[in-house]
C-alpha cells in the first residue's frame, strides 16, 4: 500500500477546505488531483507533505502513520508551482541540499553526494547546468531542477503542486510527456495537483476529481471521462453543452424537442433534468437524416487546431449549441456563416436535478 488518507478534514476559519476525504493510492501510481481552483486540492497535497496540519483524520504512508510527523521526517518530495529553487545556490547545490542537511551520521560522503546529484541532473537532462543559478534558467528548466532536488532525498512519495501551470503551453506539453516517461522509469508513487483536465487525462494512472473539499469521483482517465459519476464531473472534464429541461415518461425535453431518456431514467415520472452533450458528439449535415434532427443556423466559426468549432442557433432551443467537427467535413459540407444545417445529437448524458454544478 502506498498512501492511505483516512477522513481528512481541514477548515480555515469558516471555510471548509477539505471535507472528510478518504483516499487510497497504490505504490508506484501516478495520481492526479483534479478540480477547479479553491476546491481544496492543493491544501490536501500540503497536508500530505506536512506543510499544513489536518484538523482531523490520518495519513498512512507505506503502512506508517505520519499524521503528526513534522515535514522533514515525512520523507516526501515536494515540487512547487513556482519552483521555489534556492536563488542563492547554483543548480548543483540546489539538488544537493537535501543530502547536505542530513545529520552527520546519515550524510553520504562528498563524492557520493556528487555522484548522486550528477546522476539526478542527467536524468532530468540538466547536467549541463550544474554551475548555473536558477535565475539563469527558463521556467521548464527550473522545474526539472526542482524535480531532481525533490528526488535527491529518495522520497517515498513525490508531490507536485500544479507543476506545469506557470509554463507556456508548448513547454507544458513537452514536460508533461517527459514526466510521464520519467515516472515509468522510476516508479515513485506520485500525486500531482492540477486544474487542467487535459493534463490529468494525459498524465495520470488515476484521476481523483475534487470539488468543494470533497471527492466527486475517482478512477482511470478513461473511466472518469466516459462514465462521469455526476453533472459536475461531466462538466469539468472537457467542453460541454448543457440543456436544462424536464424528464417525463421516458422522454427528456430539449427545448421544444424530446429525446429518449437513458434506460436507467426511464421509470422516472417527472423531474427537472440537465442534459449534457459533448461538442464532438454532435453530427452536422446539410440534409435531414432523421426525425429527431434539429434545424439550425451557423452563427460563428472558430478554428481549434484540426477541429472546427461551430456555434449553431437551433430552432426551439433557448441557447446556441457548440459543435466540433473535423476540418475535412467542414470543407466537404462547404459550411459558412449563416448556412442552414441539420444537427444530430449522437450521445447525451442526462442527470436529474439531484446534482448541482
Amino acid at each position, binding site marked *: 500500500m502506498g498512501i492511505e488518507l483516512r477522513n481528512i478534514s481541514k477548515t480555515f476559519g469558516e471555510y471548509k477546505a477539505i471535507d472528510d476525504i478518504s483516499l487510497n493510492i497504490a505504490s508506484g501510481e501516478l495520481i492526479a488531483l483534479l478540480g477547479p481552483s479553491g476546491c481544496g486540492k492543493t491544501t490536501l497535497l500540503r497536508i500530505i507533505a506536512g506543510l499544513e496540519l489536518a484538523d482531523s483524520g490520518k495519513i498512512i504512508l507505506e503502512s506508517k502513520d505520519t499524521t503528526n510527523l513534522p515535514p522533514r521526517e515525512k520523507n516526501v518530495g515536494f515540487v512547487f508551482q513556482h519552483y521555489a529553487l534556492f536563488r542563492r545556490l547554483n543548480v548543483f547545490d540546489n539538488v544537493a541540499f537535501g543530502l547536505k542537511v542530513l545529520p552527520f551520521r546519515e550524510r553520504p560522503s562528498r563524492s557520493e553526494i556528487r555522484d548522486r546529484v550528477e546522476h539526478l541532473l542527467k536524468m532530468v537532462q540538466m547536467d549541463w547546468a550544474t554551475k548555473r543559478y536558477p535565475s539563469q534558467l527558463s521556467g521548464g528548466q527550473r522545474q526539472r531542477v526542482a524535480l531532481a532536488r525533490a528526488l*535527491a532525498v529518495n522520497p517515498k512519495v513525490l508531490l507536485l503542486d500544479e507543476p506545469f501551470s506557470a509554463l507556456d503551453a508548448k513547454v507544458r506539453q513537452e514536460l508533461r510527456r517527459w514526466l510521464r516517461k520519467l515516472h515509468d522509469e522510476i516508479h515513485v508513487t506520485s500525486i500531482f495537483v492540477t486544474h487542467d483536465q487535459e493534463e490529468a487525462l494525459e498524465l495520470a494512472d488515476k484521476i481523483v476529481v475534487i470539488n468543494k473539499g470533497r471527492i466527486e469521483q475517482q478512477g482511470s482517465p478513461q473511466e472518469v471521462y466516459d462514465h462521469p459519476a455526476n453533472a459536475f464531473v461531466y462538466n469539468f472534464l472537457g467542453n460541454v453543452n448543457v440543456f436544462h429541461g424536464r424528464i417525463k415518461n421516458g422522454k427528456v425535453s430539449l427545448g421544444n424537442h424530446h429525446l429518449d431518456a437513458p434506460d436507467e431514467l426511464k421509470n422516472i415520472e417527472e423531474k427537472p433534468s440537465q442534459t449534457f452533450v459533448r461538442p464532438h458528439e454532435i453530427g452536422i449535415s446539410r440534409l435531414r437524416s432523421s426525425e429527431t434532427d434539429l434545424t439550425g443556423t451557423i452563427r460563428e466559426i472558430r478554428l481549434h487546431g484540426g477541429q472546427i468549432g461551430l456555434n449553431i442557433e437551433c430552432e426551439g432551443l433557448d441557447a446556441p449549441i457548440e459543435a466540433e467537427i473535423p476540418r475535412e467535413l467542414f470543407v466537404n459540407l462547404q459550411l459558412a456563416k449563416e448556412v442552414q444545417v441539420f444537427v444530430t445529437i449522437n450521445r447525451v448524458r442526462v442527470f436529474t436535478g439531484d446534482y448541482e454544478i
Partner: protein
Amino acid sequence: MPIIQKAKSKPPVAKKRVSDPISIQILLIGLTLLFFIGFVFVPLGLIFSQAFQKGWSFYLDAISEPYAIEAVKLTLLTVAIVVPVNAVFGVAAAWAITKFNFKGKTALKSLLDLPFAVSPVIAGLIFVLLVGSRTPFGSWLGELGIKIIFSTPGIVIATIFVTFPFIARELIPLMEAQGRDEEEAALTLGAKGWQIFGKITLPNIRWGLLYGMILCGARSIGEFGAVSVVSGHIRGQTNTIPLHVEILYSEYNFTASFAVASLLVFLALLTVIVKSGMEKHFQKNSFHL
C-alpha cells in the same frame, strides 16, 4: 532584415517624443541643484570653514582633547551595541511579520513606525519616567547598583528605541516579496530550523540586512534628542559626539564645536559611500532577487 534595421533606427526618435519638454527638464534639474546647494553643499562647506578657522593645529587639538575622545569612544561603543541588537530584533520582527499569520500582525506592523513618528525627546522622557532613579523600578535597580539614566545603558537603550525600525523596515518588503516557498522547500527536504535560517533565509536577505544596519548605525551616531534627555551631559562620561558638539557650541566655543561636528560629517560621508557601494552591488546581484 530591412524591418529590423528600421526598428534599430527608431528608438532615439521614440525616446524624444515620450520625454518631457526641455524647459521643464531644465527647471526641475535647476531646482534640485539649487536646493542641494542651499541646504547641503553650503552648510557642509561652512562647517569645514568654521572648523579650520583657527588653523590645523587648533582643529587637531579640538578633536583630540580628552573630552572629545571620550565622546567619540562612547558614540562608537553605543553604535557597536545598538546595531547588532537591532539586527537581531529587526530580523526577528520581519520574520514574524512576513512568515507567520497571527492576530495583531497589522497592528504590530504599524507600531514598528512608532519610533519614527514620535519625537526623540519624548522617547528619552519615557525612559526617564520608566527607569529614572525616582521611579520604583529605577530605585530598585539603583539598590542593585545598576544605573541606567545618566549613564551609558540609558544612552544605549534610548538609541535602540529610536533606531529599531530601520532594519525591520528594510527587511519586511524584501521578505514579503520572497515569500515562504524556499523555506517550505527546505523543510520538505529535511532541513532543521537553524539550517533553513542559516542556509536559505539569511543569504536571501543579507544585502537588505546590511543596508538596514548601515542606516541604523548612521542614525545611532547622530542621535541627539533622546540621548540628550537620558544622558545628563556629564563630560567625559555620558557625552556622545552630538552632545559634545552642542556643549561646545553653547559655550561659544564655535571653532572647536565645528571641528568636532566635522567628525560627524566624515562619518556621514563614509556611510553614504558605503551605502552607494552596496547599492551598486545590490543592482548587480538583483537577478537573484
